[in-house]
């Protein structure tokens, strides 16, 4: 069974600081996704990482994928309050027939002024 682990689960940081969220997974998948979720809302797609060494950046967020280490990171640069949300990584389980996403537990990020 595919396992996806995120850490930390809770992150409180000050505006202007940098931090990294880690996502480890247990299968050989090379397809990993990052989503943002605001309270009571849907999942907003942030990044789609489809190969080893993939790096994508959007604003203050940068995501990378190392399939050999089975690790993805979401790096936050100079955090602002608007980034406060829950961030999920999800791995495409390519060993199943229909393919499906297995999500991590989520990292609840709070950015304090």
């Amino acid at each position: 069974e595919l396992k996806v682990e995120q850490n930390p689960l809770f992150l409180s940081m000050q505006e202007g600081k940098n931090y990294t969220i880690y996502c480890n997974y247990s299968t050989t998948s090379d397809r990993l996704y990052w989503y943002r979720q605001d309270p009571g809302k849907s999942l907003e797609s942030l990044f789609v990482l489809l190969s080893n060494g993939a790096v994508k950046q959007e604003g203050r967020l940068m995501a990378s994928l190392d399939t050999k280490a089975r690790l993805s990171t979401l790096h936050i640069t100079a955090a602002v309050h608007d980034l406060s949300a829950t961030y999920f990584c999800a791995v495409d389980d390519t060993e199943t027939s229909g393919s499906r996403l297995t999500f991590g537990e989520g990292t609840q990020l709070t950015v304090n002024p």
Partner: protein
Amino acid sequence: EPEVTQTPSHQVTQMGQEVILRCVPISNHLYFYWYRQILGQKVEFLVSFYNNEISEKSEIFDDQFSVERPDGSNFTLKIRSTKLEDSAMYFCASRRGQGLGYTFGSGTRLTVV
């Protein structure tokens, strides 16, 4: 930008009643999914659907659950006899092909009382 549309946004039902959650996936997408998220927890896979049949289902998707694509546009999730523990946010998702990104709907919050 194309969207996955879900209705209703919120449904309250009595335990033991049947509910149908509706989704309109993006029109040229071929793979369809239902996920659920119990309040404060991670997103869990329920079922995937391709070529008018279930591709895969999780252990959560027992005999009380069924899915249909009755008219080529709608994609429904039926829960025959709801239990208190079915209370959750249910997300529909679709994708055009394997290896491509998923688009999630805005969700239906189901409350069983």
